[in-house]
């Protein structure tokens, strides 16, 4: 009973945050509501007995990734989004499609209500040790592959985010400044 109440509580927060992400027009608010969603999701994970996942969810998602988003928003000083009518397809085809898909899925799910025990906090079948055992034994190869993926992502991010003239300067240290200004101009004029 308590379990159900908690689930509904955090679920409500989740949905509220998700909807708020949609309705808010300023990216900062969207980001914050997303953080709320993630935090309450972590609570849901706790309800499901996945403590480690919950902790990592908070640390990685809420603590790191969303901070990246926040930094980007601040850096680019993104303002309210203007409501341009760029794409009729998205509204005329996409939204109905999503609605149909959602309805279908919900229908199937509700049609097959399978009651199941959910583990409450403390019942430690998802202990970090077991996860580590899985992660470093059975899933070693995917683990390594993802690590390589991360590495590549880091390098790509560095290359992408560093200014072209910065790269040029790194390559040959005596790059005249006006050249870099030209680069910026060419970058900006289309």
């Amino acid at each position: 009973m308590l379990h159900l109440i908690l689930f509904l509580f955090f679920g409500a927060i989740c949905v509220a945050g998700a909807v708020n992400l949609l309705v808010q027009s300023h990216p900062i608010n969207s980001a914050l509501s997303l953080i709320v969603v993630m935090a309450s999701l972590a609570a849901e994970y706790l309800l499901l007995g996945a403590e480690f996942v919950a902790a990592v969810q908070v640390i990685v998602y809420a603590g790191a990734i969303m901070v990246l988003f926040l930094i980007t928003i601040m850096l680019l000083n993104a303002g309210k989004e203007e409501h341009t009518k760029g794409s009729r397809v998205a509204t005329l085809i996409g939204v109905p499609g999503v609605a149909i898909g959602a309805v279908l899925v919900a229908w199937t799910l509700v049609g097959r209500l399978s009651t199941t025990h959910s583990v409450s906090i403390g019942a430690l079948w998802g202990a970090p040790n077991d996860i580590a055992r899985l992660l470093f034994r059975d899933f070693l190869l995917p683990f390594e592959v993802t690590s390589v993926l991360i590495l590549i992502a880091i390098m790509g991010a560095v290359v992408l985010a560093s200014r072209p003239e910065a790269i040029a300067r790194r390559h040959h240290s005596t790059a005249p400044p006006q050249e870099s200004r030209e680069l910026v101009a060419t970058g900006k004029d289309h």
Partner: protein
Amino acid sequence: MTLNPYLWLVPLLPLAGAALNGFFGRRWSKHVISAVALVFCGAAFAMALLLAAGFSSASAPYYYDLAHWLRSGTFQVDFSFYLDQLSLVMLLVVTGVGFLIHIYSVGYMWDDDGYYRFMSYLNLFMFFMLTLVLAKNYLVMFIGWEGVGLASYLLIGFWFTKDSAAAAGKKAFIVNRIGDFGFLIALFLMIKHFESLDFTHVFAAVRTLPTETAGVGLLTAIGLLLMVGAAGKSAQIPLYVWLPDAMEGPTPVSALIHAATMVTAGVYMVARSSAIFERAPLAMMVVAIIGTLTALFAATIGIAQTDIKKVLAYSTVSQLGYMFMACGVGAFSAGIFHLMTHAFFKGLLFLAAGSVIHGIGGEQDMRKMGGLRVYMPVTFLTMSVATFTIAGFPPLAAYFSKDEILWKAYSSPNGSWVYWLLGVITAFITSFYMFRLWFMTFFGDYRGAIAHEDDKSSRAGAPSTHAQGGSAPHGHGHGHGGPHESPWVMLGPLVILAILSFVGGWVGIGGRFEHFLAPVFQSGAAEIAHETAGETAGKGTETLLMLISVGAAVLGFLLAWTLYFRRPQLPARIAASLGGLYEAVSHKYYIDELYRVLFIKPLIDGSTTILWHGVDQGVIDAAVNDSATAARHVSDNARHMQSGNLRSYAGWIAAGGAVVVAYMVWMGVR
């Protein structure tokens, strides 16, 4: 069957030479090129001599398996070589004459721009020819068969800038393809019924079958198909038309490929397949008839030709006809014997003719020659030897071989007096036109003008022939003052060949040659038996027939002497009186025109209208183009989905996802 590990060297040496010259010859000096070519070809000759020295009928045949090739189930074909008496003879002839002609070519082709090409081609030809000769199974033989076809194509069209040469090369190639088609079908039949292409297996299998006296059976079919192939390669009726045109090639080529070796491949193949033919009398008869008719037919054409090489070409055709006649009557050894002698004297004739042509600056028309014996005595002497030989004067080589053939045509169980009669007539005609050529070329007085003038006046081909190939190695090409003798590098082979064609026939005295080849041809033994049996009856007739044929030769000589030496104006009048017949003969009975009307034109028209305009443009191209245009239209409309807007893409994806979900749900519900 004894293993001889050196067999494979013989063909491979010329191949190495060809590769070296072909790849690097462009950068090498002509001396290096000739050295390479001669060394490798000579090495092959030396190997052949070694093999011959070590050859003993007791341990024959020798074989060597070079490598595995096709292996599927029980059927297997390997790169394996095979040496028995027959292939030994061929081996010696090919390598020997080939080597001499290589030497000759050094002098003849020296000033040609494509010298290294020429030498490389010659070596390549040697490789394929030796493969053909040394093959242990029909497929390897077929490789050589096709390879010599390729080499002859390359060499006929050697001066490919000349339209007539290129056309002649194509003609030769295509006609040969027709023959090879028959050959291939024969091979397929063998594979189907004997599950092998190996000579020993096939013949062993054949020998178990009964002789197809009544009706047409498998062996007859195979034999006829093989004969088709042989007719293509050896220029027999109806596929002989390519050989005269093949004279567009350089004269050494004509000598080596189109007189001495390649064209005799058909004879060799038939002789090699003797086991099959012996059990297919009908096929034998066809072979004999074709041979006889070809001999007579070509000889008659030869009378009216004025181009010296054309005359020789037709005489080649008719001599090949003799060989086939021999094979047809079951006297394979006689055929091979004549093949050998013919290789000597016909090669000699061509080389001498080449020396003449190149001595008077590329002129090939006999009417512009004459009186050359003073200018080029050596050529004259050797040419005389060759002429007397081919005419069949004793005791020269052809005398023995031709008589052998005629006697066998008369006496052998498959023979009849008709063959003999036609053969004798052919012999008469042969000696006539050969002496005509002899007189017109070397006697009387020189009718040719100075070289560079008749360059303009003479046939379109001749000048370029002269310019590219025919000019003298020592300095004066165009515009040299009058005829002159050729250099010794060319005369040497002439002399050697002259000696060979003088004494070459003596190996056949007393049937030694036949005995030597006996193990190869089963019937050989029977022949000998029949020989010894009909000794008493046969001797008299044989001598009689011999006298008759010699008489025919003498008669031909006298006629030619009368017409072209004592009364040179007479032939014109005769020609005029004969009128249409002469026209027909001089135009080779309009055979080429006939073929053009019968086969070529329908083929071209059909291809043009039906295949090209109809099928190709109407169906294939149309399909391709229309589908392309359709695709362009469709995509032109479809590309508007590519709005470049991220959210539109997302919209499409969402719709697609909805569809997928709907499908899955539906599947789940069902």
